[in-house]
């Protein structure tokens, strides 16, 4: 008996009508999208693009259900933007959306850079790349600074081997995993120019803008709030100034720099509190960041050479 043979009776025929709202509620992406809006500050264009992609995939799901789909869509993406603009964070959310919509089976993210894909000697690269691919199957493979895979100055570079395996899997195993390439916009553009195979396999390009000063402040307040801290009013003003100055300095990495700055500020606050052991503290004292905790930062041009 052939289990795959079905007769076109009422049960097996595709539905003539589908209920969009029921489908939307059933997959539960509304909650993920709202959470994305709520928890991530700014990123307006990114959020819009993700809503568009989610809409497209929801319709694709309906088309599948109605027997109108023509194969699985390409879902590989590229995320371009400066460091700390939220690419990794958004990749995690995308994975969860793809999972809820049924376009990946598990919904986990495996995040790698060149070092995890490319080997040191002949015969080392293919197994390494495959190892990573196997772990990513069923989910999303996030390749940070993907352009380092391609080193044209060295014609024997093993990166090329990794690229070829990746391209093959991106093409032939689209049901098994989604690849997201991430990195600086300009370098990524050059990478795509030299590797047209990648560009043609990528369905969605999403650009991550830098955060404005106001957004960085909101991000800072959110991060503090999460850890049960908050700025005193003068500390908030000081941190606004901090942001303005830090942005002009080298190695500024948007929200990541904010996270790091807050770590150091909490350290200074703890030191300030500990300095007076005879004092009794209220919860408010322990939660409050004072202006001095911010202003002691090296960013304000104090001579102290330590990394503060």
């Amino acid at each position, binding site marked *: 008996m052939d289990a795959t043979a079905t007769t076109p009776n009422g049960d097996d025929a595709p539905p003539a009508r589908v209920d969009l709202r029921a489908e939307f509620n059933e997959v539960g992406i509304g909650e993920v999208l709202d959470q994305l809006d709520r928890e991530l500050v700014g990123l307006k264009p990114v959020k819009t693009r993700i809503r568009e992609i989610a809409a497209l995939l929801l319709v694709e799901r309906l088309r599948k259900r109605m027997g109108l789909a023509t194969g699985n869509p390409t879902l590989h993406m590229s995320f371009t933007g400066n460091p700390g603009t939220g690419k990794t964070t958004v990749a995690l959310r995308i994975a969860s959306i793809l999972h809820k919509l049924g376009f990946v089976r*598990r919904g986990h993210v495996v995040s790698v850079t060149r070092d995890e894909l490319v080997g040191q000697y002949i015969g080392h690269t293919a197994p390494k790349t495959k190892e990573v691919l196997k*772990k990513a*199957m069923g989910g999303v493979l996030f390749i940070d600074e993907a352009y380092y895979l391609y080193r044209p100055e060295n014609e024997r570079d093993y990166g090329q081997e990794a690229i070829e395996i990746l391209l093959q899997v991106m093409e032939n195993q689209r049901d098994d995993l989604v690849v997201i390439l991430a990195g600086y916009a300009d370098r990524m553009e050059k990478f795509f120019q030299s590797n047209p195979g990648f560009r043609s396999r990528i369905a969605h390009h999403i650009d991550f803008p830098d955060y404005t000063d106001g957004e960085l402040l909101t991000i800072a307040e959110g991060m503090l709030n999460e850890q049960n801290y908050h700025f005193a009013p003068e500390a908030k003003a000081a941190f606004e100034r901090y942001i303005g100055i830090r942005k002009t300095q080298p190695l500024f990495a948007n929200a990541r720099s904010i996270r790091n700055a807050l770590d150091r500020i909490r350290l200074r606050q703890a030191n300030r509190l500990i300095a007076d052991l005879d004092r009794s503290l209220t919860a408010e004292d322990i939660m409050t960041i004072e202006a001095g905790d911010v202003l002691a930062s090296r960013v304000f041009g104090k001579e102290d050479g330590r990394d503060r």
Partner: protein
Amino acid sequence: MRLTQGCFSFLPDLTDEQIAAQVQYALSKGWAVNLEFTDDPHPRNTYWEMWGLPMFDLQDAAGVMMELNECRKIYGDRYIRLSAFDSSHGWESVRLSFIVNRPKDEPGFRLDRQESDGRNMRYTTRAYSADKPEGRRYGG
């Protein structure tokens, strides 16, 4: 004679879909999945060759199926078995093992009888295919 070793060997061969479902079960339990191949079908042959390393930290069966298909491309004329190892404390052993590929023709085993002292009999089984050198046993 159809070789019956490991789980499921008295059932018809599993389809790839059925194999993938078993693999997914193993992965969901956190077991490491491993592929091995041989052309010596003797039941006491414990020296199967490993196809790469055991696969750790996989979430989805597709990764294992990819390796199985590559192994079949090269050793499709031999026996391939898949095993799942549970490393958790107290188990530390294989929890599931079954054949996922077999040669087209399986000539089976000959039973040799050796008459020894008194009326004693010694028995030994010999795979017909093992008369040929390794690598040439199943027309490969």
